[in-house]
């Protein structure tokens, strides 16, 4: 227990890296994911196919494999991302964007068909239908799953520990070696994650409930 207090600043450093990894990857993943979701409902079939393939392939690929590609395989193609933090951001964003795209697409698809039909029948244009009727409803049912995607992202940043980033888990590994495998080291790491994930989980649950009641 003292061990956690004594190494508080080390934990904080790790926590800061995890938080920054999560934040940068989240922004990038949301951007890419939204584009992919838009492509998936686009009227152009070829784009739909490409976006669908992107989402399906990434969702069925382990994140470790994405890291493996960036760190060990990409250099064979002459692609040299700056090792460590930004490579990790790229991998996490790429991987998470597929789940963002899926959450957004399900959100849009989840709005009752009758809503769009009714909106069209009162003469709204395509843009108006989306803006006034479909998207406001879709966003509400998309936010809780998106928060869950972000929670998963927070936890997934730990994979970067295997690839040259010293975030929370990497910090835990170091402290564990330095303290002869003291189990308290990892308890400290666990607490750091729970500080992020549990409040986010509660937020998602309460939002889900509110959306459900609004229906």
């Amino acid at each position, binding site marked *: 227990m003292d061990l956690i207090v004594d190494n508080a600043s080390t934990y904080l450093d790790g926590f800061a890296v995890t938080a920054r990894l999560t934040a940068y990857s989240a922004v990038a993943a949301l951007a890419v994911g939204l584009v992919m979701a838009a492509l998936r*409902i686009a*009227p*152009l079939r*070829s*784009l739909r196919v490409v976006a669908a393939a992107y989402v*399906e*392939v990434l*969702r*069925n*690929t*382990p994140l*470790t*494999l994405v890291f*493996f*590609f960036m760190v*060990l*395989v990409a250099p*064979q*193609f*002459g692609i040299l991302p700056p090792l460590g933090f930004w490579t990790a951001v790229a991998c996490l964003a790429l991987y998470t964007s*597929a789940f963002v795209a*899926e959450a957004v697409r*399900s*959100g*849009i*698809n*989840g709005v009752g*068909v009758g809503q*769009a*039909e009714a909106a*069209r029948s009162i003469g709204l244009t*395509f843009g108006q*239908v989306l803006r006034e009727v479909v998207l406001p409803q879709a966003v509400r049912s998309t936010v*809780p799953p998106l928060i*869950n*995607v972000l*929670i*998963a*992202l927070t*936890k*997934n*940043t730990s*994979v970067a*520990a*295997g690839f040259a980033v010293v975030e*929370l*888990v990497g910090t*835990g590994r170091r402290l*564990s070696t330095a303290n002869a*495998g*003291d189990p308290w*080291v*990892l308890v400290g790491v*666990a607490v750091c994650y*729970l500080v992020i*994930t*549990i409040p986010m*989980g509660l937020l998602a649950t309460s939002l*889900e*409930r509110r959306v459900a009641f609004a229906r």
Partner: protein
Amino acid sequence: MTSVLYDAPGPVTRRRERIGSVVGAVVVLALAFLALRYAAGRGVFQADHWDVLHNPPKGQSAADVWRSILVRGLGATLRAAAVAAPLALVLGLVLALWRTTRLRWLRVPAVAVVEVFRGLPVLLMMLVGTLALGMDPFGGVVFGLVVYNMAIFAEILRAGLAALPKGQAEAASAIGLSRWQSLRHVLLPQAVRMMLPSLVAQLVVLLKDSSLGFIVSYPELLKAIQNNGQYFGNRYFVALFVVGAGTYLAVNLSLSAFARWLSRRTGARAGAVGDPAGLALVASRPSRRRATRARP
């Protein structure tokens, strides 16, 4: 959904869309071609980057290379998943049932276990296994997969139970079944069947997570790829990566397809409840209010 957003296209629009689609396809293919040509320029497609798959150097045989990847590597991946999945399911079921206890304070431990373990990275739990609990890499991988997935399975089953129409439980108790009997004979069978697609989809996640064993020295598929790459030299990483990624995709896409098929079958039967499996990988609708946190 998309079909009702705009008018059914007329002949002109249809032609325009077809042209746009073709143009889009051409652009995508051109980009792919440029990428491939660039890669070829780096020598990636030269025979000496691929012979590891049919005629490897260092006096090794191709059969051994494939065996090391598909038998030992994939075998280790599947073994970890095969040991972890049933354990996680059983423990998840126990937790889900525990949470149905009527006494609030009795429920607390089960709720706490679920909330804590699904909020922690699987990799961290694997390290807890190997570093803190002194397990070997296989034990650590299985431990990490079990504690995380039991929490998720518990959530899925709880969601399934909660989504059942109230009348089911009421009818069961009306005919004199005890609480345990009604769970055992009426509620659980329906909940499990309804959530089957989600459970299978979670198996894909579990299988994917077994690749974290790479980081804790468990000799699974990805590790086998890396060992081969190290043994034969870095220039083979592309070829070996293609094999590894292909294997993962083949296994996971089949499992996903299985989940989708299940979802369609059970969806038809459980019509009254709609698609409670909104959290499934394959879901085409948003998760309903009881949906579990889907973990990418």
